[in-house]
Structure formats: C-alpha cells, structure tokens
C-alpha cells in the first residue's frame, strides 16, 4: 500500500509540474491536489526511516501549488503587441481601399 501511495503521488506530482509549465491556468491544481493527499497518506503509512521520499513529494507538490496560485494572482493574461500583425493590418487596409475604389 505504501509503495502504491508513493508511486502514484510521484506520478501526480510530475503531472502537476508539467501542467504548471504549460499555460493551462488552474488545471494543474487537480493533479497537485491529488499528489498532496497521496503523499500525506504515504508519510502516515511509512516507517520513520521511509518518510524521506514522500516528504519530498509533499514538499515539491506544495511548492508547485504555490507557483500555480502565484501565476493566477500575479501574472495577468494579456496580449503582447505584435508589430508584424499590426503592420499586416495597416497593409491590409491600404489594399482594401484600392479594392473598394475598383468596385
């Protein structure tokens, strides 16, 4: 049982880290939450000399949780000015005026 808890919490923690890196918003909180619960249970079911690994998983999951929350709170979803796109719009409008003159 302990082995299952440690492995599954490790898998969910890894998935949480992957989703945190990707721009998927709060979706990462699902595997992170599962990893936190499973790693906590793994610590409780481990003997004193077996607690190091689940403790690390719990610690990493907690840090990842804070990173996700921090991204949501402090980083705004915004569009960065794209000069190439702006230029394309200007050229497109000039071309449209020519086309409309020809109608």
């Amino acid at each position, binding site marked *: 049982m302990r082995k299952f808890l440690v492995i599954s919490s490790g898998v969910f923690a890894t998935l949480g880290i992957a989703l945190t890196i990707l721009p998927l*918003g709060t979706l990462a909180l*699902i595997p992170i939450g599962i990893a936190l619960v499973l790693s906590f249970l793994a610590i409780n079911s481990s003997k004193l000399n077996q607690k190091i690994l689940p403790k690390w998983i719990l610690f990493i999951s907690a840090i990842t949780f804070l990173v996700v929350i921090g991204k949501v709170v402090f980083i705004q979803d*915004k*569009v*960065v000015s794209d000069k190439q796109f702006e230029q394309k719009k200007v050229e497109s409008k000039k071309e*449209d005026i020519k086309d*409309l003159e020809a109608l």
Partner: protein
Amino acid sequence: MKKCFLMLCFLGIYVVGFSQIKANEKLIYAASYNMSGLMTQLAQVSMHTEMVNTSKKTYLHLSWEAETVSKWDRFFKIRDMYETYVNPSTLRPSLYKRSIYEGGYSKTEKYFFSTDGRNVNSTTTKKNGTEIKKTINIGSSTQDIISIIYKLRTVDFSKFRVGQIISYTIVFDEKEYPVFVKYMGMETVSAGNLGRKECYKLAISSRTDKLKGVDKNLIWLTADSKKIPALIRFSIPVGTGQLSLATASGI
C-alpha cells in the same frame, strides 16, 4: 478559433431599415476554452467599427481580430482577422476578408459581393501561395460572417415570444449556410466594464456538423438600444468555450 467564429456566423438578419451600429465602437472579449471543466483564457478578441471613405462611397468597416494571450503564443499562436466593408445604412457587404494564422496554419479569403447581391467572387490563398478563384451563387439576402452579427444587433427582440425563431443565410468557407436564431428569453449576465446587464438570450443553430448540441450555442445581447454582445458560449465537436465581454468603448 475558426470554429468559434463560425459559431458566431450562425446569427440572423431582421431588417429594420437603418443601422444602429456606430463607428469607432470597440469591444474587447476574453476568449476562454473549457479544459477538463475549467475555463482557461486562450485569446483576446477585439471587435472594431470605423468609417472608411473612398472617392465614390463611404463604407462601415467592421473587423474582428483574435490574438492568443502571450503565454499561449509559444504553444499555439493565433492571429486571425475577419473584416467586412458594408453599406453603413443597410449593412450589406461589398468586400469581406478573412486572414487566419492558427498554430502554423494560414489561409486568406477575399469575397467581393456583386452589386445585385446574386453572387460572390472569392479568392482563397493558402499557406503555400496557391490561389483559388471561384464565383459562388448566393441568395439576395445572404450576408458574410461578420456583418450578420451586426445585423442581428438591429433586431427588436422586445417584440419576440420565447421560442420564436428567425432564419437566415450566410456565406462562409465558400458555402452558403442556413442559420436559425431562437429567442430564449431574458437573463442578467456580467458585461465587463458595463456591469451586470439584462440581456436577450439567443440560441444559434444550423444544419451543419460544426456546431454541437441543442441550444448549446448561445449569445446574450444587452437588452437596450446598443444590443452589445455581452457573452457568447459555443459548443463545437472539439469542446466548449466562451467569449466574455471585458471592455466596451465608443458605444
């Protein structure tokens, strides 16, 4: 994103004789996509209107632009432009353009509407530069994807009964599509900087596999003279999403 726009095209016409659409109107939306039950903001959609003068005529330029938010640019960059030049009074289109860039895929379409409204001369340019020209026969009331949305805003829904349907036709992807708009009643929704607004709730459907579900593609128009689209929800084969109004200016 293309499908999101396509959902919007399934909106109708109800001619009231004059346009209520003002120039220099700017509406900005947050476009979100449902990922495992959570709405994740993917892009920003802007709708602009402006007057354009040529030596012969004055047109109302209606444009929609979609750009992915910066964090998504590295993974799936979207730079879409949908534009139409219409008669300011009747909203009848003369020139429609679509230029899309979606995760490396690009395509440009240009439609010239004939003055008698019976056909469209289209030019499609693909990423490799291949140009395809076609003449498409259309009905006299067929609109393009953008102007139809503005046409819908001229409809007086206060006289509609719940369940009442209006049907129209649009041209998109070189095909004509029948469009049905069902009035679903009134609802209060958040409308960005306008606050919470009472809105007309409308369900959009069409005989196409591009939209999913019954009454799952919805648009809320503010129940005032402006009829600003406050919220748009869409359900397509690859998922669901929404456009929620963030800021409205020049209205």
